[in-house]
């Protein structure tokens, strides 16, 4: 049933990448519990605008949990407290009247804060550019059914491919590691026959780029898996490590 609650928000405000930021307090009143978290922020922003104060900048787009553009740290947890849920799909019914909610940007060495809750995640694109693809040009590909792929392999590849590239894994990791993100892409393509010819090259370059961009290492904290809104399993990190060792031992790439 619909009811309304009142909240106190502690929101990270930062004018730009070079200016130091800090928390500011806002009150969100009469918030319907059917609202999404971002709709709650919309309501706060409308009021700020009318009060001649600058609204809170936050990234968002599809608001249905698939584009990966939203994401902030809510009470210390990327995308908030609900398991397997992006911030845009988190609803206010999971909060109680009188709660105080702390909202901060994803924090990592590789993610620069641009403004308020908006961060620069282009480092993730750079990792994909290092090898997160199959090198086929448009046209001239064989019939789609020419190479059968066992159903269970296709399903595992799909499990890994569900990654939305939001960066919550990085934000949740004490080392700000991107291993889950990289592991997911490496796994998807290493599992499928189409990705195998380049598997060694791919994992080598992607891991190398990840290290260069300032992402940390994996120390098996498993925070990434716990916070991933798409519940990507850390077995993908294990698979990436196997691929990486295999590439080192048997491939001429390095």
């Amino acid at each position: 049933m619909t009811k309304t609650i009142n909240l106190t928000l502690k929101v990270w405000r930062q004018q730009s990448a070079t200016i130091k930021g800090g928390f500011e307090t806002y009150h969100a009143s009469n918030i319907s519990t059917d609202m999404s978290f971002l709709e709650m922020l919309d309501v706060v922003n409308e009021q700020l605008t009318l009060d001649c104060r600058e609204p809170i900048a936050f990234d968002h787009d599809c608001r249905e949990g698939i584009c990966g553009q939203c994401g902030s740290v809510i009470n210390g947890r990327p995308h908030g407290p609900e398991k397997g849920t992006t911030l845009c799909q988190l609803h206010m019914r999971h909060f109680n009247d009188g709660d105080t909610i702390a909202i901060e940007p994803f924090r990592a060495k590789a993610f620069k804060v641009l403004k308020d809750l908006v961060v620069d995640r282009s480092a993730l694109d750079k990792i994909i550019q290092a090898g997160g693809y199959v090198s086929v040009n448009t046209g001239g590909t064989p019939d789609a059914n020419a190479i059968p792929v066992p159903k269970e392999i296709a399903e595992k590849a799909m499990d890994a491919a569900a990654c939305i590239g939001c960066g919550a894994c990085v934000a949740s990791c004490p080392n700000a590691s991107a291993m889950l993100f990289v592991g997911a892409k490496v796994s998807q393509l290493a599992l499928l026959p189409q990705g195998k010819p380049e598997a060694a090259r791919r994992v080598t370059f992607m891991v190398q780029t990840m290290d260069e961009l300032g992402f940390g290492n994996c120390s098996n904290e498993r925070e990434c898996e716990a916070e991933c809104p798409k519940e990507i399993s850390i077995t993908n990190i294990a698979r990436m490590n196997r691929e990486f060792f295999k590439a080192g031992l048997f491939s001429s790439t390095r």
Partner: protein
Amino acid sequence: MHLDAKIPGGPLADKWDKHKFELKLINPANKRKFEVIVVGTGLAGGAAAASLAELGYNVKSFCIQDTPRRAHSIAAQGGINASKNYQNDGDSVWRLFYDTIKGGDFRAREGNVYRLAQVSGNIIDQCVAQGVPFAREYGGLLANRSFGGAQVSRTFYARGQTGQQLLLGAYSALSRQIAAGKVQMFSRREMMDLVLVNGQARGLVVRNLVTGEIERHGADAVVLCTGGYANAFFLSTNAMACNVTANYRAYQKGALFANPCFTQIHPTCIPVHGTYQSKLTLMSESLRNDGRVWVPQTVGDKRSPDQIPESDRDYFLERKYPSFGNLVPRDVASRNAKEQCDLGKGAGETGLAVYLDFRDAISRDGKDMIGQKYGNLFQMYEKITADNPYEKPMMIYPAVHYTMGGLWVDYNLMSTIPGLFVLGEANFSDHGANRLGASALMQGLADGYFVIPYTIGGYFAGTQLPKITTSQSEFTSAARTVSDRTQRLLSINGKRTVDDFHRELGGILWEYCGMARNDEGLTKARTLIQSLRSEFWENVKVPGVDMDLNQSLERAGRVADFLEFGELMVIDALARRESCGGHFNEGFQTEENEALRDDDNFCHVAAWEYAGEGKDPQFHKEPLVFENVKLTQRSYK
């Protein structure tokens, strides 16, 4: 203006091959001398940028999001059609062509649609080769499902995330070309104006959404892949940033806008539940494969659905359309849901919902099987509504989802501005008055992977392109116009927020230019939009400054364009004196309340030319010629 669609002559099945042969080629060494701007990185834009770069062209790619992997194509759930006939159930290029033409209520071009069906199979081959993890059978071959408006199973899918997987495939191809230095990527940029030099599209003025800087970019051709305009309605299933600005700017610069009143209202969305609502969420149409749509028999029956016995339920789609049942096309399903709710039989607190029930499917196939097919959709539904669809029927209601109208393009996908190409949802070309499910992904990728790489070469080979620089007057004046407009928006400092205006505009369009329209309502809507627009320019409040990341300013610019474009939708709806597909004028219907076309007078594309601020747009007509299919009353009974 004479609208020449440039459809090649000869038999339908040979047109594309013949055309490809006749298009002049650019020598591989010369391709690198050309620069192409691609705006948007969805399926059409991502595929086009990657494919053009692979051929050797130098590409500049622009997107509004923080990375090219987030374009709204990503949210398409159900699948992508292709006439592979892997299921041995009678599919063919011809059948896909025919279904699409018929589904579009005979308001699309035969030549374009046939080509779409022809390349549909190549798309699946391409995506599989990229590593797209499509659903498969135990034997390792690809699985298919059926979809609305078709009686064969030709839809390929990747769980409920087909759009995501196809987009990430295109993004991976694009990433490869970025790494190769053939594509320069500009993220967080919004196209603010199109620059014409000697009447040819030669560049853009864009705003850097992080710094607020106005940037100029020159090229030899511009390819717009900027999606649809469903957000004119404020509430739609589109992503928040989807807008009409790029297309509207092209329209203002001379590109004709075709069929703006053709909008698609998708039948299976989560109903509206509050005024604060920012967007609507689609539940994939694939759910109609197993879910049964019903309302209570009696008006005002407010019992909870599990208390309503079989005899008191009306499965209205199955009753009215026995041969297609729950799989009727979207426009038909939506209109029928509205009809039931208007009769007072709607479900839920608001009465603006119908049930989509999986009870029978679960008892037939088991919960596991249904979970495998729709698990993630059920989960999404539960997150939003806190109801469990395994136990309680879903409640759904139609919502604006897709726009068939768009910039007018010829067979080469070039607009009326030389050198301005328009791909995907941004153009008008393939879906007529109604789009069938799983066809948007097909069209976006067909345009991007398999059409533009050929046709752009033909343009370059036959065109003189003088050298330009971005410091010349055309760029300077466009940049000045953009800055002036920004300053004007910031200086109004009125009393209403941008969203407040947008919500009101959406309400007007939904009420009077939505699922059912009539002359009186449309006329009223036009006046309402005009006065809302005047108020906007006097009373909007846009906080912040221009040289900054300013999301209110971004939205203000988009809403200002929607306020003009909304009127064009209404004008087009008023001018089309018939009902067809997504355009249902209550004055034109059969005795059974189905859309009544007027093929004698309205079998044409309505293409509108901008005539200047405050002036009525000028109407142009492209007659639609059907040489291969017979126009019939669309029947799904």
